[in-house]
């Protein structure tokens, strides 16, 4: 059997001690901001930045991300990047 080969790894965002409450809005938002700061400092191709992106893609509703991307582009995003 080819069990070893076809094994798919499913990983969601781990528990984050900074956001212990049910409402995970701030978790999503913080990772989005961290990603923006990361790529600002290290460039979009910097591998470690992808971790933040993966988390916020998991945590955030898609339309929030679309809206924030638009705001970042226009320079109206309400976060310190």
């Amino acid at each position, binding site marked *: 059997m080819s069990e070893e080969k076809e094994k798919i790894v499913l990983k969601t965002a781990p528990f984050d001690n900074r956001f212990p409450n049910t409402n995970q*809005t701030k978790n999503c938002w913080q990772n989005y901001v961290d990603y923006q700061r990361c790529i600002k400092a290290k460039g979009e191709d910097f591998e470690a930045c992808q971790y933040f992106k993966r988390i916020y893609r998991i945590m955030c509703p898609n339309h929030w991300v679309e809206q924030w991307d638009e705001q970042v582009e226009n320079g109206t995003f309400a*976060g310190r990047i």
Partner: protein
Amino acid sequence: MSLVYHPYHLVDPSPWPFVGASGAFLFTSGAVILFHYNDYRLALTGLFLIIITASAWWRDVIREGTHQGHHTQVVVRGLKLGMLLFILSEVCLFLAFFWAFFHSSLAPSVELGSVWPPLGIEALDPFAVPLLNTTILLSSGATVTWAHHAIIGGPAPISAPKGTQGSEGPLPSNGATTSSSLLSTPNDQRAPTFLGTDFRTNAVIGLLMTVLLGIIFTGLQAFEYKEASFAISDSVYGSTFFMLTGTHGLHVLVGTTFLIVCFIRLLSNQFTNSHHLGLEAAIWYWHFVDVVWLFLYVFVYWWGS
């Protein structure tokens, strides 16, 4: 005046409750029209009726209490309780606005940048004019106590004629006795002195300084509003800031007016050392406004910046 065998004040029919309620209704509707259509006529009409009612109704109360002697000990107790309950209701009003402030500022939403003050809001420096205003209001609390103690320590009312108990007596049988029990009649040889001058002068100076400090406070707040880099439409920060400080400012205006009325009544010798309910109510109100400012200063101006 006919003799009554109970200490209660049975009020005469008066137009002011109806006129006041009409004014409040018109002012509320007028404010809606003002905000939506920028037409101020109905709001001004309502405000006019409210001011007319306030002036005339309290004029009537002064006549009933000071000149007709209806404010017996029992009536005074009721009026004091009423004032305290009114101030309690004011506490609830400010509590509601403070609740909104803490709701928004303790866990600022992501739309604000998760920071307080929100990103882009330049809060006022708490150690500039707001600190000065804190010292001004605290000083006014001291000067009003000075005035109050000058009145308490002042000459006792001239003892009422036999068979009556003066303005404090349970039987308001003769209104004429109350008008003689006034503070510091010129011929009173017992008139004591305090700080090199008589008690009455101390009370006048203390109360005048309190009123002036209140006016200076209002002026400085107006200056701060004019200089502020944000408006009431600038995020929930502007909303909570101007609702809280604006409501407080209106209360300072009302408190100053109340103290000015007391000042005029003091000049016309309407307060005795044991009966000066209007002044006491004004002092309570002023201290309440003062305490609200301390909360505003500590939480909105200082912590909130």
